[in-house]
């Protein structure tokens, strides 16, 4: 089976200034995203993440190399039938309601009228926007825009989703809800390519990640492989004093194991926030 996404020797240069000096945004990038995983694309600003995504979607023409979507050259219009795309900080037609917007994109993807109504209802409910679907898009908050954006990406039931910073500017409740949605999509057999600056969220969410810097791939693998946590575990216990820690270390050493770190426990601020603010707000009740 062909990988969901593949780039081979991808290069993208942008001419800068009148002399035509070239700025290399992506530099000989080889990337393979297997089907059915959540794949994180990480990197600082200007590392080439968005350009790579645009090349994958045929929005920019590679200077060299090739991109494939499920084995098909990504420059072909037909290849994009398998892709749903949520751009960074999405901006949609303000004069449409959420339902009309999703319907419009559904029709653009070739859904027939009969099929469309059912699909629109399904995806709008899936992203928790049923209650606000008949409001004009111009009245939506940032979090709602992201969710209706995800609905338009899902409307034609693509096998691959490309989500560029899907939680940018979204509060922790909305962000957690988005993460749950993304996990649900992976569990339903979709492939998700994700970019984000929230490394903690990416670590918790992604099966595999690639790190880009100045257009080059600098690391790739599962999160456990990259963090060195493949053969390790974390235990949370009641507070131990210095003598008890020493005793535990000796006990572990006798069994061939090491104690690699001791840190204060607790649930973390994000867990407390989510508990106090309530996850149910993300279920479509946001004003």
């Amino acid at each position, binding site marked *: 089976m062909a990988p969901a996404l593949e780039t081979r020797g991808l290069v993208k240069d942008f001419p800068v200034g009148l002399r035509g000096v070239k700025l290399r945004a992506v530099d000989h990038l080889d990337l393979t995203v297997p089907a059915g995983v959540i794949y994180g694309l990480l990197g600082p600003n200007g590392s080439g993440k968005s350009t790579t995504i*645009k090349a994958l*979607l*045929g*929005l*920019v*023409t590679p200077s060299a190399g090739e991109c494939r979507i499920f084995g*098909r050259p990504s420059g*072909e*219009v*037909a290849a*994009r*039938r*398998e*892709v749903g*795309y949520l*751009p960074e900080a*999405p*901006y*949609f*037609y303000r*004069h*449409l309601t959420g339902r009309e917007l999703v319907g*419009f*994109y559904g*029709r*653009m*993807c*070739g859904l027939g009228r009969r099929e469309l109504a059912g699909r629109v209802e399904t995806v709008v409910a899936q992203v928790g926007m049923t209650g606000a679907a008949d409001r004009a898009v111009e009245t939506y908050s940032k979090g709602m825009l992201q969710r209706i*954006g995800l609905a*338009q990406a899902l409307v034609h039931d693509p096998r691959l989703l*490309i989500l560029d910073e899907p939680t940018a500017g979204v509060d922790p409740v909305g962000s957690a809800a988005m993460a749950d949605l993304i996990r649900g999509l992976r569990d339903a057999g979709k492939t998700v390519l994700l970019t984000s600056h929230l490394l903690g969220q990416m670590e918790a969410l992604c099966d595999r990640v690639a790190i880009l810097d100045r257009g080059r791939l600098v690391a790739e693998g599962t999160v456990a492989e990259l963090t060195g946590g493949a053969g390790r575990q974390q235990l949370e216990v009641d507070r131990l004093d210095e003598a008890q820690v020493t005793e535990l270390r000796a006990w572990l050493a006798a069994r061939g194991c090491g104690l690699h770190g001791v840190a204060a426990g607790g649930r973390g601020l994000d867990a407390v926030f989510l508990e106090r603010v309530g996850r149910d707000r993300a279920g479509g009740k946001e004003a």
Partner: protein
Amino acid sequence: MKGAPFSFLRLGLVAQNTLREAVRQRLLHLFVGLALALVLGARGLRDFNFGAPELKFLADCGFGAMTLFGSALTIAATAQLFFSELENRTALTLLAKPVWRAEFLLGKLLGVALLTALFCALLTGLLAAVLWVREGELMALDPEGFRGGRAVSYAMVALGGSLQWLRLVVLAAFTLLVASFARTQVFAVVCGFGVLVICHLQHLAQEAYTRAGSAVGVALGGFLGGMFPNFQVLSLADSLDAADLPSLATWARLTAYGLGWAVAAGLLAVLSFRRREI
């Protein structure tokens, strides 16, 4: 997996969305409002008729309003509706779908063509109503002068409106052609007005060059004639007399002339936009 052939349905959806967006724009409301005001208020300007018959003067005012405000509306709408897609990044979402760039661009053109069709239909209808009412008043005042019945050919008025529309469609296509490679909306608007001036005045330039006998001038005139349509060709509406009504063949030839230029400019725009980086 099936391919994704060019789809007129998708093109139509882009056009429909473009039209919906256009009719909500305040600047366009302003142009339509001014044009309507000029047609309705033309009777108040009768003293400035420079000796032309009153009904002819009213018709000139109506078609003048269509040309002036219709051209401004067409250029502004085409540039704004195209660049708003790029600047607001709605084009990014749309072109990431299985959509051909040609469907997107020609859909935009069709949307503006529908907008200008509504504009011309509205103004032509209003002009016809103004002429009808005033002609009725004049007939009551001077029955002898209208012994043969109504003097105005309303078929000519309708034809004049349709020719105005053809000009606006050609203008929209040329503005879109510039927008397809332009970096800024202002550049596209300025070039749009430049095209308008060339298309309106090139016949005068050609006549002047020919009279002067300058080889360079004649060559320049020929170049302009080859690169831009001559809007004078689409100006049969100077007369309101039914006797001047062109034949069906002439009307078809004029339509083919206008649409031919629009299609050619539209296809060039598609070619130019094909590899534009979004």
